[in-house]
């Protein structure tokens, strides 16, 4: 979608840039190296060289988090991440959350078997026990297969319910105990209620919605309420799985009801069906999973970038006075990470030759993976910040006030000419909107929104079937429906979706209904002052056009620079104290960086120095910050912003606490499937990978 007239990214035009390149050579190697890298990545067939463990830059402040399964529900750990004002805490928790997410599939299965198991213990039903066994085995096999494909070092013998395959780098240093933990799930706290959490509060009403329709429908039709026949397989599969657990869930309260063998068989058939579907999409999922793992690997360049971006975002979040600005910056970074990844050797190394993806498919996979690794850990914080900003500017209050006005208006006053959704439809809609709120991925949120819209259309056409309803019919009904939902949450959701969605989807159906929802909300906001409202709204919306325009040019600028923003950690006033992450561009000079520091640390008179191995290292004001960074030895450098009069040779001669744990030999970091196939020109490659 959204295919440009013009040829794609300007950056990789190797030939035309000959002269500028020559010029840039003097500027420092940052630029040159970057260009070369691009050339390599783009003109020559991508050498399937492994990503080189970044020599200098991986200065992960944290040792990898312990690997034990976090049993409290994902939600709570995310909340921790959100609150985490200290960066480390936040990161740590976020990582946990991520990891949990990573194992989602496994967990989901586990939960399923958990559910079954619980029932089993109640019913003493042998068949179920068997099935459960099989599930465990099946899972195990699948995992083994996966491991083989990745050709990573053999996992420790998985327990009956193995956890997600552990990425080699992390496994090594920390987690001798990890294989042990998966054996716990049989413990009491692993039973049914645990896993369902994110879905269950929303899902439960669904169950009640279904019950009047009779068990037969429930049993045979996968989510008949869900709208389109055109859902992606993934989703279908999820629905199936959810349905499955819902089925189990709906049964469990009636534990007294005896389970007949037919139901058990039905369960089994259902399970097999979902296995087949899983098989179909597993390649895609595996690729997504690998990207997520890469993004999580603090020793890879990409993972480091993601991590620093997160730290940067969390630190600077409160400094944004406008929500749009904040969200756009996050989206910006995601887009850059995406374009980096799509051109990177890291991704090329992950692709399996037997599975060709179209460019669009690949982009969507990368997008999904990035949502998971970038947005998911940030979601709670973003929402908190959004809420704070909109409470501050009175937007939410205004919305809440007018909500009651709209509620008190007749359908005629709202301009409704068709039927409005009945109670049962309203309930379904509110479930969809609730699901929407829970999702972290803008695309998935939009899917839920589309489902809600579909239900609205369906209810509208009850009064006059066959009539096509346009925006003039739909918008008033939308207002009617929204006024009966959680408006404030939706307001935040809409903003989240609009700013963070994949820009290539901005012309799609999802975008249209998102716009309509935005319009409905704006209209509700100004509803009671109809007359004067028009003008006022216009001005507001005009602003939004300007914002739009600005974003477009902004994006363009960034794209034409063809470079990804990088980050630097600076301490103040001495090594190891008060580290802050700053965003830098390849063109940022030390002087500009000092100015940034002055703003961030609120200290004008300080100066910026670089310490390498604890020794002060003079840097020229005109030097490029990134070339300094990439010129340093791994983890041995530290940028310090300190009072000017501090003697240069006085700093404590100790290693910077930000140093990464001693780097294990290179081989350990490289998953076997990324093994170097082509090792020529290692020097150039290495450098270029790092300083892109």
């Amino acid at each position, binding site marked *: *979608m*959204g*295919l*440009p*007239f*013009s*040829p*794609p*990214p*300007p950056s*990789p035009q190797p030939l035309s840039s000959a002269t500028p390149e020559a010029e840039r050579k003097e500027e420092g190697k940052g630029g040159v190296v970057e260009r070369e890298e691009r050339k390599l990545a*783009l003109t020559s*067939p991508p050498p399937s060289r492994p990503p080189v463990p970044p020599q200098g830059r991986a200065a992960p402040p944290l040792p990898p988090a312990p690997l034990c399964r976090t049993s409290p529900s994902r939600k709570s750990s995310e909340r921790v991440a959100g609150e985490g004002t200290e960066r480390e805490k936040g990161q740590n928790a976020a990582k946990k959350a991520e990891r949990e997410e990573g194992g989602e599939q496994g967990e989901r299965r586990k939960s399923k078997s958990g559910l079954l198991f619980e029932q089993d213990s109640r019913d003493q039903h042998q068949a179920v026990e068997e099935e459960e066994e099989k599930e465990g085995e099946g899972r195990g096999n699948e995992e083994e297969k996966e491991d083989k494909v990745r050709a990573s070092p053999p996992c420790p013998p998985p327990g009956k319910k193995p956890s997600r395959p552990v990425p080699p780098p992390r496994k090594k240093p920390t987690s001798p105990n990890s294989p042990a933990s998966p054996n716990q799930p049989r413990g009491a706290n692993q039973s049914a209620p645990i896993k369902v959490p994110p879905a269950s509060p929303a899902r439960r009403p669904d169950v009640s919605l279904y019950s009047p329709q009779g068990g037969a429908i429930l049993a045979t039709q996968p989510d008949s309420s869900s*709208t*389109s026949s*055109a859902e*992606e*397989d*993934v*989703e279908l599969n999820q629905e199936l799985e959810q349905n499955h657990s819902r089925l189990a869930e709906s049964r469990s309260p009636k534990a007294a009801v005896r389970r007949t063998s037919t139901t058990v068989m039905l369960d089994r058939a259902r399970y097999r069906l979902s296995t087949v579907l899983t098989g179909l999409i597993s390649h895609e999922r595996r690729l997504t999973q690998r990207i997520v793992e890469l993004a999580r690997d603090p020793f890879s360049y990409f993972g480091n970038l993601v991590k620093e971006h997160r730290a940067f975002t969390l630190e600077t979040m409160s400094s944004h006075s406008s929500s749009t600005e904040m969200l756009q910056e996050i989206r910006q970074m995601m887009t850059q990470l995406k374009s980096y990844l*799509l051109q990177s050797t890291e991704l090329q190394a992950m*692709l399996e030759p037997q599975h060709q993806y179209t*460019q*669009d498919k690949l*982009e*969507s996979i990368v997008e999904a993976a990035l949502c998971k690794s970038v947005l998911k850990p940030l979601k709670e914080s973003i929402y908190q910040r959004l809420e704070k900003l909109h409470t501050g500017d009175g937007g939410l209050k205004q919305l809440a006030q007018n909500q009651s006005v709209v509620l008190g208006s007749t359908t005629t006053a709202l*301009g409704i000419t068709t039927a409005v959704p009945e109670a049962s439809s309203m309930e379904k809609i509110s479930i969809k909107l609730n699901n929407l709120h829970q999702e972290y991925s803008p*695309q998935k949120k*939009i899917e839920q929104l*589309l489902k809600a*819209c579909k239900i609205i*259309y*369906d209810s509208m*056409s009850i009064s006059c079937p*066959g*009539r*096509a*309803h*346009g*925006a*003039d019919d*739909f918008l008033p009904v939308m207002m009617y429906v929204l006024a009966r939902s959680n408006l404030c949450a939706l307001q935040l959701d809409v903003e989240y979706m609009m700013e963070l969605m994949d*820009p290539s989807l*901005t*012309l799609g*159906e999802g975008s*249209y*209904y998102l716009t309509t929802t935005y*319009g409905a909300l*704006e209209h509700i906001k100004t509803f009671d002052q109809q007359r004067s409202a028009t*003008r006022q*709204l*216009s001005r507001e*919306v*005009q602003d*939004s*056009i300007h914002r*739009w325009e600005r974003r*477009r040019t902004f994006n*363009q600028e960034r794209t034409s620079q063809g470079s990804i923003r990088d980050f630097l950690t600076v301490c103040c006033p001495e090594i190891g104290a008060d580290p802050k992450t700053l965003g830098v561009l390849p063109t940022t000079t030390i002087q500009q960086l000092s100015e940034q520091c002055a703003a961030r640390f609120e200290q004008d008179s300080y100066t910026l120095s670089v310490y390498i191995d604890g020794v002060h290292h003079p840097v020229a004001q005109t030097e490029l910050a990134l070339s300094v960074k990439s010129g340093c030895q791994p983890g041995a450098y530290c940028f310090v912003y300190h009072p000017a009069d501090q003697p240069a040779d006085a700093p404590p001669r100790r290693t910077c606490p930000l140093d990464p744990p001693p780097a294990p030999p290179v081989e350990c970091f490289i998953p076997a499937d990324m093994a170097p196939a082509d090792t020529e020109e290692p020097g150039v490659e290495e450098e270029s990978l790092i300083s892109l």
Partner: protein
Amino acid sequence: MKKTYRDMKKSYIGQLYLCVCFVASAVWRSLDEDEDQRALQVRRGQRGSHVNEPRHHTRRAQASFLTKKLNITGKRVNLAIWDTAGQERFHALGPIYYRDSNGAILVYDITDEDSFQKVKNWVKELRKMLGNEICLCIVGNKIDLDKDRHVSVEEAESYAESVGAKHYHTSAKLNKGIEELFLDLCKRMMETAQAEERLKGNGASQSASSRRGVQIVDDEPQATPAGGCCSSG
């Protein structure tokens, strides 16, 4: 054989994505007719593909968003058609719909002088907000009711010319002039977009600028039972 990112990107240059937004339920409906068939096929063919998000088309129930594929001088063009709420009370929301569009279709009812005045207001607003980049179409609908015409052909056409728009005559009821309208608009939008590209030079301005949609705004007064005359279709 592995395709690199660049290779894959290149193969798409022949395809444009434009976005149209329009309101005329009358025009809409006849378009909807031939669309139904296609939508079903697309749905089946593109399952799992993310480019076109999962479609949630219902037959006939929704007429707010539609995509239409056209083949113009060998280029595949995908129109995203956005229906703008044209009612007076929603007028203020217009910009959020048309802000990214490449074109707009403004439909008036030839039997209703007032609707023509409203088209003029829309034109003014669109020119002010989006400048000359946007292709405007002014469409006199209901030419099957020519005996009741209240807006003269000359007046409408000279007005259209004065504001740099093109004028079309359609009858949604008889399905007359609509296909031509879309083809012609589409060509114009492509020309405009390409000229814009050339202006910016060396194609450096990637997707951003060209990713505007084509939008069509109609101002057929709600009171006019537009649906009445066409719902038979």
